[in-house]
């Protein structure tokens, strides 16, 4: 057998353990995990090899590997693991570290570490306060009302420039970070691996698979996850369409919000919000229900879930309080909603939100290189 020198990155091992892979070292390489896994390819299957790479601190082999993202954390491996090493949780931790590795700013470390949580929230809070404090809007009665005397959020926080410039900039920042991250990831994955076939075909099949959520059907222990994730996914699609639509209304037709409840835009927005609320509640319920078999999840996971929860709850409440004309609660709720939305978008490349981009990329790469057919 050829000699192989391994230079373990001990810091990486510590990071995996600290990021939710706390039982990593219990693994004794029996390969139960790879056998019960229904989503792994048969050749060089995961997650057994990932477990030993992680134990030995072989960071480079792990994070530049598409396999960590082909794993959908069904947790069948964790349920059947004879040692309680929780491979599903370990791969989750490795994915977090991969996101941090490929994202180009120090923000990545901060999003993954609870001690920076307050600072991360302080950024949007101070930003939005800087818009309203000079106008004296901390006093709710000073905020101008609509023509019918109702609450109009755009009079509290104008769409242009405050909202659109802030979120436009956040989205641009996130997009740039994603592009840089994915570029580095793709380069790392490609080194030494020959690509085959047409990349457009790989992208097309990956997208159709994601839209159908086919892979979730292969999970056993957490099979309820498909519907939960599907709801959250399509709710976000619905909300993205709603936002685009609102931009068209505003800049194309000079038609200002708030829109009446029967407006198709409003119908889509509200339906998406309810789907998101239901979906994220299912996500939370499934995680709690499966915690014993699948593991309790990491800070990284729960921060993401909590932020989505906060967005949908503050969003729905903002609308209800506006309709009920309860100004003292409506404005602070809307303010909180903006803060959470900022948190989700601006920090997307460093939070679990990034899974969307990295996993899709890995799936495309796996098809493109015949890792998956």
């Amino acid at each position: 057998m050829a000699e192989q020198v391994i230079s373990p990155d001990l810091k990486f091992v510590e990071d995996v353990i600290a990021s939710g892979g706390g039982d990593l070292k219990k693994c004794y390489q029996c390969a139960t995990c790879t056998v019960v896994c229904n989503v792994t390819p048969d050749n060089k299957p995961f997650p057994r090899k990932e477990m030993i790479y992680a134990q030995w601190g072989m960071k480079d082999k792990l994070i530049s590997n598409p396999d960590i993202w082909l794993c959908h954390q069904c947790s069948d491996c964790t349920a059947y693991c004879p040692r309680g090493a929780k491979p599903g949780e370990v791969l989750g931790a490795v994915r977090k570290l991969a996101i941090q590795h490929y994202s180009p700013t120090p923000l990545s470390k901060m999003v993954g570490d609870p001690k920076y949580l307050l600072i991360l929230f302080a950024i949007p809070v101070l930003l939005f306060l800087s818009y309203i404090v000079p106008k004296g809007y901390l006093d709710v009665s000073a905020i101008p009302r609509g023509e019918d005397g109702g609450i109009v959020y755009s009079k509290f926080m104008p769409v242009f420039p405050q909202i659109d410039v802030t979120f436009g900039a956040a989205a641009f920042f996130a997009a740039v970070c994603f592009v840089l991250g994915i570029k580095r990831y793709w380069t790392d994955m490609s080194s030494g691996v020959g690509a085959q076939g047409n990349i457009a075909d790989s992208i097309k099949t990956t997208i159709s698979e994601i839209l159908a959520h086919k892979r979730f059907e292969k999970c056993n222990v957490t099979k309820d996850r498909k519907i939960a994730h599907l709801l959250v996914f399509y709710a976000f699609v619905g909300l993205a369409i709603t936002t685009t639509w609102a931009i068209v209304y505003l800049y194309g037709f000079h038609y200002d919000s708030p829109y009446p409840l029967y407006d198709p835009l409003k119908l889509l927005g509200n339906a998406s919000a309810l789907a998101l609320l239901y979906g994220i509640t299912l996500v939370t319920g499934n995680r709690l229900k499966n915690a014993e078999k699948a593991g309790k999840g990491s800070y990284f996971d729960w921060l993401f879930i909590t932020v989505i929860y906060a967005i949908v709850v503050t969003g729905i409440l903002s609308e209800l309080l506006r309709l009920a004309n309860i100004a003292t609660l409506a404005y602070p709720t809307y303010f909180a909603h903006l803060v959470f939305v900022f948190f989700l978008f601006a920090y997307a490349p460093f939070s679990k939100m990034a899974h969307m981009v990295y996993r899709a990329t890995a799936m495309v790469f796996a098809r493109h290189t015949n890792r998956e057919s």
Partner: protein
Amino acid sequence: MAESNTVVIIGGGFSGLTAAVEAAEAEKDVVIIEKNPYLGGRVAQLNKYFWKLCPPNCGLEIQFKRIKNNARVKIYTLAEVQDIKGEEGNLDVAVKVNPRYVNEKCVACDACAQACPSYRDNTFNFGMDKTKAAYLPFNQAFPMQYVIDRNSCAPNCKACADACKYNAIDLGMKSETINIKAGAVIMAMGWNPYDASKIDNLSFGKVQNVITNMMMERLSAPNGPTQGKIVRPSDGKEVKNIAFVQCAGSRDENHLPFCSYICCLASLKQAMYVREQYPDSKARIFYIDLRTPGLYEHRFLKKAMDDPDITLTKGKVAGINEDPETKDVIVEVEDIFSGSKTEMKFDMVVLATGMEPTTKTSQTIKNVSYTSDGFVDIGAKKGIYPVGTLKNPVDVVRSAQDATSAVIKGIQSLRRI
């Protein structure tokens, strides 16, 4: 001096028998309490010992002979200890003796069994065949006395009693509780094979040609259900291509968290049974790590490795299915050295199930404490000494060594006060 010169030994398997002969030959009175209708325990069910591949009956016969020739040994079969009271040197052991319905006049002529119209699952052979409700546990049983399984009898049937020429059958026998004064108690209740049906991904009980290692011992034994011919349960086909699944339940937090010590050697041995019986056969052992504890056992592994038709594959089997057409067994495994996940087909698969102490499921003796895995805490109480597999999984040799050392402790308990 203690008030009693008696050592009570609970369990008449190899540990209990060894303790009994050692204590009796040191001139102590011995009472063996055995829950089965026969002595010999798990060893009586084995075909051959590893690593010498000699028949266990040989050693058992020697122990039986030593007991028979020693008037100090009293044996209760079908008996269970219900309670132990008192202190070291002065213990009071309450024993429930269940009826055998056959007395010592029995000459084992088989007339009762021939007359009996009812059948029962043969528990000695793990249900792989049946016996009459009037039966001899196995051909070399000690005591050589038939038993009636009343739960399997036809209502109001007394065909066996009518057929017996020796007045040996008494269907009116009742259970009784006796109290035995003892200076020391040795707990030698041994182990049960782990219930393989609890390991849902290994499909025991669902796929017909998946059996356990203890079933394999019976299947290979000349006094087993097939007279030692290794054939598979579904169709009686000769087993030419066999797989062994190591750590079936052992070293697994979801089942038995400990290593069961014997299973690697048992599978190596059983692979040799098949190879010897069918020279054109192949055997494959799937393992996590092959463990061959002991002085000579690694040579046994070497012997298996030298056979080109015994293949050792690193990777734990974690999925088993049945080919519905052929009833062949399909195992799912990752061959770790080649790094590929594959399915392989076999005539029959043996699960190397582990040892669960009998005290995992039955803890009637309250005087000692138990670990979370059901083992007896070592040194838990003076005067009551657990041995062998009640303390940790061990093989027969180490059980016997442990029983011998426990006898010294028992004798000290008789003399200490």
